[in-house]
């Protein structure tokens, strides 16, 4: 069941794209945490810390990737207003990451 009445193929497709983006981000982060734990158990604390930090960075960037996918998806679905809203959010996030 899709989230909207009168569902179009594009909306269902976008839902799957967003779902996969979020899942990939979460699993990559978990992979980083697991690798960090393995490094810690192997007696490499610095490597462990780096891997944990990498997992955190991937996790924090996951919503950013999700917003980028929303912009792409709404643009493809010919919903310019929603694509623009997603781009504004993306620009705000990039600003936070790079400038502040």
């Amino acid at each position, binding site marked *: *069941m*899709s*989230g*909207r*009445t*009168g569902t179009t193929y594009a909306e269902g497709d*976008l*839902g*799957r794209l*967003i*779902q996969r983006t*979020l*899942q990939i*981000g*979460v699993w990559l*982060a*978990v992979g*980083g*945490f697991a690798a*960090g734990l393995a490094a810690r158990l192997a007696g490499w*604390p610095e490597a*462990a*810390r780096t891997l*944990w*930090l990498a*997992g*955190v*960075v991937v*996790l*924090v*960037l*996951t*919503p*950013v990737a*999700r*917003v980028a996918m*929303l912009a792409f998806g*709404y643009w493809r679905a010919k919903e310019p207003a*929603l694509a623009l*809203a*997603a781009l*504004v*959010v993306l620009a*705000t*996030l990039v*600003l*936070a*990451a790079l400038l*502040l």
Partner: protein
Amino acid sequence: MNELHGMVLLLLLVSGFGIGVLGSVLGIGGGVFIVPLLVLVLKLPIQQAIAVSLVSIVATSSAVAAVNVERGLTNMRLGIVLEVTTAIGAIGGALLLKALPAELLQTLFALMLGPVAATMFWKGWRAWRRRGLSAAAADVTAVGAVVPGKFDAAFYDPAVGAAIPYTVRHLGPAAGASLAAGSLSGLLGLGGGIIQVPVMNLLCGVPIKAAAATSNFLMGVSAAASALIFLRQGLVLPEVAATMVVGVLVGSFVGVRVLYRIRAEKLQVLFAVLMLVVAAKMLLKVFA
């Protein structure tokens, strides 16, 4: 804190699990519990606690949204519009963190929560007592044979065994409220769900389940916006964040199943109680 010892590790995992369950069911990030835990128990400085809290909120949001989008509970259109003001508010909040008196903010926020919680409690309690009433009629005030608008949506609710269509109203004021919710993220390390859920439910007419799911969806952005700033400032403790996130993720996967099956009116009452607890806790902290 360079080493995490057994008991601390267990505490982080277990509390992360509980926060993940609660956050995914109620549409909140759980920052209101994480920050005090890290400050009072682990003795972390408040800014590092907020940074870890924000990372945990991103984890809840991403894990839960992946499931809720698939189930149609998340209103992505509404979410992306509210995200615009939420993200701007989050950055403003993170930058104002040092400039504003935290006690004043917490007092105002707590006082605001009281009447909102009472309204939500009354609405949920009334529906709960009318057992014969369907969740759709109990939870949504603007449903019917209307022409679907751009933000209107529907989802299947297994608790009542029916599709729940709804109409989204008052988007402008809701966007303004999202600005405040985003600011809270950066200022207090909260996800903002404590504002977003009642605003979507009471003001926009979004059923509580869809409101919680959409809140989870968009709080990831506000938390990420603030967390990026904290990451750049080197305030995120990777070992603490990673441990807590693992607990949060496991809890989120459990909680998202509860959200799907719980009755809407129970969720409303539970959320109202949570708001009152948060308000009382903030007032106690300020005046104690």
